[in-house]
């Protein structure tokens, strides 16, 4: 194991896959000469050259569209959308083309495509640059949506995504890039579509992913001091959704809190809680609680922004309500 940041883990995954397979290439805004706006592709342009690290105009539809076409023709593009908020400019290509192509032409079009993007609030970028609309993308059959919460998962899942023959929407979190964690040495992948127990506990099940894993872990640390043992399930992939560890944990704890950064309505929490009620109703000892973003466009002012985002205290309070 080596300790590294999320940024380093993602960067390593990309670097290693590009070294491994000459069909892998990167395209996006400022990925090349600049080195990536989040410095994930720093040094790539000089090492791999302009053909494999392709700077594009600020034109998201053609970034994703070209990545789709290149994937159809047998390459393995990794398209970077500078933020998830800009993915809306490419929404048509993500949902009407990438997600549909394999099915609609009865398997003729293979799309080994990764769209890497960055979501999340908390950096005072205001309403248009701070969204966490992960659930929107997870709505579409045909896409796979991955959102890691640790450096080790980010590296293994990104490598698996690049090697996958399906279109993957890979969501990183803007405030996790500096987060450090242990990462296995050498080449490894983590299967897409597998949730995992990140922390063992017997009193309550916390279901979460991405940035909210960090928030939930802090909450669990404080709850542990009060003798409450929370079990944390990290979804890691939103579609296809792996409910097995969630249901197994819930059957043990009989209580659940779902923590997501996106808005409450129609969100990940709504889906998870519905599934628990459907699949484990007889095990329910308390109404399931959801912790999510307040239903406002995220404001710029730091205090207001933090009021809108889910906090450690919100998770603790929700856990205490279900106990």
């Amino acid at each position, binding site marked *: 194991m080596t300790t590294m940041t999320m940024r380093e883990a993602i960067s390593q995954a990309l670097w290693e896959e590009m070294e491994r397979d000459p069909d892998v290439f990167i395209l996006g805004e400022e990925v090349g000469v600049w080195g990536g706006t989040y410095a994930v592709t720093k040094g790539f342009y000089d090492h791999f050259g302009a053909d494999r690290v392709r700077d594009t105009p600020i*034109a998201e539809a053609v970034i994703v569209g070209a990545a*789709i076409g290149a994937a*159809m023709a047998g390459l393995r593009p990794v398209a970077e959308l500078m933020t998830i908020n800009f993915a809306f400019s490419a929404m048509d290509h993500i949902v009407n*083309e990438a997600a549909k192509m394999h099915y609609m*032409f009865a398997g*003729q079009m293979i799309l080994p495509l990764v769209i890497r993007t960055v979501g999340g609030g908390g950096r005072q970028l205001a309403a248009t640059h701070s969204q966490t609309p992960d659930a929107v993308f997870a709505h579409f059959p*045909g896409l796979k949506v991955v959102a890691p919460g640790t450096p080790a998962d980010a590296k293994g899942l990104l490598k698996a995504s690049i090697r996958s023959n399906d279109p993957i929407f890979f969501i990183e979190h803007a405030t996790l890039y500096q987060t450090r964690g242990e990462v296995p040495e050498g080449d490894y992948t983590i299967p897409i579509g597998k949730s995992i127990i990140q922390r063992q506990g017997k009193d309550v099940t916390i279901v979460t992913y991405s940035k909210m894993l960090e928030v939930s872990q802090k909450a669990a640390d404080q709850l542990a001091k009060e003798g409450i043992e929370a079990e944390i399930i990290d979804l890691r992939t939103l579609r296809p959704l792996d409910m097995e560890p969630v249901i197994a944990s819930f059957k043990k704890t009989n209580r659940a809190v779902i923590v997501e950064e996106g808005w409450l309505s129609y969100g990940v929490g709504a889906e998870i809680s519905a599934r628990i009620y459907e699949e484990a109703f007889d095990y329910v000892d308390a109404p399931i609680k959801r912790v999510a973003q307040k239903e406002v466009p995220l404001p710029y002012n730091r205090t207001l922004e933090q009021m809108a985002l889910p906090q450690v205290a919100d998770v603790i309070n929700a856990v205490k309500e279900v106990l």
Partner: protein
Amino acid sequence: MEKSEYLKLFHEMVVIRRLEERAAELYQQGKIGGFLHLYIGQEAVCTGLISARQPVDRVITAYRDHGVAISCGLSAREVMAELLGKATGCSRGKGGSMHMADVSKNFWGGHAIVGAHLPIAVGLALADAYKSQPAVTICMFGDGATNIGYFHEALNLSKVWNLPVLWVCENNQYGMGTAVERASAVSEIRQKACGYRMPNDSVNGMDIIEVRETALRVLEEIRNGSGPQLLEINTYRFRGHSMGDPERYRKPEEVRKWEENDPIGIYQRYLIEHKIATEQELDEETSRAEAEIQDAVEFAEASPEPGAEELFAHIYSEA
């Protein structure tokens, strides 16, 4: 061209015409669902254009794709079966009229969101450039698609990256029911290529010989490194935008005037005047095409419906 090649093109145009006429009948009988956009009147475009391609050249088009599918080498059987939603269709009945493809024939699909396949064409051409393949991507779209942002993003990037794309605007004068001059600031579509420093040309799309000869020249230029070019092919659809179009936006006289320039009639006269074929030979070719379509209809009607297992098949290529 050899005589047989001239006749093959004639045959292909008649196959497309008859296929579309039969499709219209089957639609009215309720045997074809959804939308049905007919290619009648535009046959010289896909036939002339695609006859000029090399096998390595990729073709991608919009939703008016039945003729393009035939010109790319799909059989009338699998096209008709797809229209009827049958398991034997080129997309196993899951794509329908607007979503036909056969990757093995380098036909990368009918795409039904206006303009959305233009960025995809950039990627297809990028893959060939990346692998140093001497291939051109032929991307066909209607005049209506040149007003959406995708057109501009795609043309711009294809030029910035100097990709081997032939952008083909099939200008059939209307985007649905809106005439070009009511929707586009320039009604001569080829002018839009100038904004991207892109060589461009326009041809009479009712004349297959003109379409083919221009396409041969332009494809060769692109193959030799000219970068992307735009070709505007002026044509006209004799039928409505889709079935059930009341056609309030154009007068019957206008349609009749264009019908006098029927691309099949023009080609027929050309073949006879140039003594390439006799009227009798062309009649025989027409009969063969009609028999082929009759066979395709019978095949499609007799074909099985897709099984229930198809419903969940192909959502992903991997579990």
